[in-house]
Every structure is written in structure tokens, then in C-alpha cells.
């Protein structure tokens, strides 16, 4: 059962990902990426990482992707304005990406981390368990990340603002 769900989710994720990079319209790409994120969220649930699954949907699929859509709309980029990549570059890219995958998989195999035991997350992925870890061991990084957000916010405002002289 779990294996079937795993396969379905995996196919969804991979197809979504491929669609992201191959669709010519940026808006479609965004939507396919959302699909991929949902599939990954499904994987998180399968691994009993409930908290991450929710965060993934809210932050990634929700907030970030909406931001992407906003930008695309704002800049009116839904039409395909992209110059076609040369065929040679595409092939080279494909080979490079394929090589990368092979080497990564090979490297992991080399580490012989693999096992045939199906992964079933226990209690560690629950909100309460993660919350405990986050607010005890990782309190300081957590607080610092708020500073990061603040600076990102200010930075975005500063960058997005049109130059006063121009206006």
C-alpha cells in the first residue's frame, strides 16, 4: 500500500518537475511546481513528518509560489519572451544533469547507506516533538532567523522601490 502511494507521489513529483522546466509559459511552470510541492508534501506525510508537510504546503506551495505568480503577473511575463536555448547547450545540459544524477546516486551507493527496510516515521515528525527540539536546542538559530526575515523584508522593500530621483 505504502509502496503504491510512494510510486504515485514520485511519478507526480517527477512529472511536475519535468513540466516545470519544459513548459514554455512561466505561469504553467509555477503551477506545475506547486503540483510537485504537493507531491513532496505527500512524501512528508508518508514519512510521518506532519509538521514539514504542512509548512511545505503553506510556505512553499502557498506563499512563495504566490509571490512568483505575483512577480510574473506584475512584470507581464506570461508570454514566452525567452530566446530559445541552442540545441547543443540543451544536450550538454542534459548530459551534465544526467551525469550529476548518476554520480550522486553512485556516491550514495558507495556510502552503502541504503537498506531495504521501508521508512516509517515514528513520533519524531509530530508538531509537538519538533516544537520541543526547535525551542530548546535550536532556540537561538530560530530567533536569529527572525532577524533574517526582517532584513529580507527591508531588503525587498529597498530593492523594489523605484529610485526617487527617477520618479
Amino acid at each position, binding site marked *: 500500500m505504502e*509502496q503504491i502511494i510512494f510510486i504515485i507521489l*514520485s511519478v507526480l513529483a517527477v512529472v511536475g518537475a519535468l513540466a516545470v*522546466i519544459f513548459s514554455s509559459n512561466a505561469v504553467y511552470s509555477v503551477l506545475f511546481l506547486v503540483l510537485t510541492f504537493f507531491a513532496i508534501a505527500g512524501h512528508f506525510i508518508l514519512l510521518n513528518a506532519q509538521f514539514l508537510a504542512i509548512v511545505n504546503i503553506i510556505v512553499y506551495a502557498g506563499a512563495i509560489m504566490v509571490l512568483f505568480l505575483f512577480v510574473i503577473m506584475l512584470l507581464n*511575463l506570461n508570454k514566452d519572451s525567452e530566446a530559445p536555448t541552442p540545441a547543443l547547450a540543451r544536450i550538454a545540459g542534459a548530459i551534465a544533469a544526467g551525469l550529476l544524477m548518476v554520480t550522486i546516486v553512485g556516491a550514495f551507493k558507495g556510502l552503502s547507506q541504503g*537498506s531495504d527496510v521501508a521508512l516509517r516515521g515514528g513520533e519524531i515528525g509530530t508538531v509537538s516533538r519538533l516544537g520541543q527540539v526547535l525551542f530548546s536546542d535550536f532556540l537561538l*538559530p530560530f530567533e536569529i532567523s527572525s532577524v533574517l526575515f526582517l532584513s529580507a523584508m527591508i531588503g*525587498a522593500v529597498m530593492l523594489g522601490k523605484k529610485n526617487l530621483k527617477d520618479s
Partner: protein
Amino acid sequence: MENLFSNTLDGYLFLASLLFAIGVLGILIRRNIIIIFMCVELMLSAVNLLLTAFSVHHNDPNGQVFVFFIMAVAAAEITIGLAILVMIYRNTGSVSIDSLKKLKW
């Protein structure tokens, strides 16, 4: 072999590698900066998935905390990145990375 297509650690390794490679492929063949950004997100997600899988494998919540932080940082990064993108578009009228050729001495 069937391990690759099941919810074992090997399966997640394979899936994550595949997603990561697709992300890389996207970065290499696309010229649109927005798409490239999305591919970066895709690669991050692949890593997140792998981290979670290892976290479960080792029964250690730290891995998942890490994923949480990655998401937080990614969110901040995207904010800034998109703001820069808007600036670039305003200045060059294009979102193609080929419009940025000043990156040399």
C-alpha cells in the same frame, strides 16, 4: 532494484537525486531567471526530502529541524531574489540571464 521504487531509503535517495538533477537540468537549459529560480527551489525541495528521509532513518528530529530552517532561509532568499529580479527587469527590460554579461573584469 525494486528498492529504488519503494519507500525505502534507497527509494528516497533515488527520487531526491532525480528531482535534484531535473532542477540542475532546468538551470542549465533555461534562460528565464524566474524559471531558474524555480529550479533552485526544486533542488532545495529535493534536498529537504532527502534530509527528512535520513532524519526518519536515523530517528533523529534534528534533520527535520534543519529542513524547517532551509525553508525559512529559502523564503527570505526568494523575497530578495525576486526583488532583484524586478530591478533587473526595470533596468534591462528582460528577465533573460543573457542580459547580465557585465559579470566580468
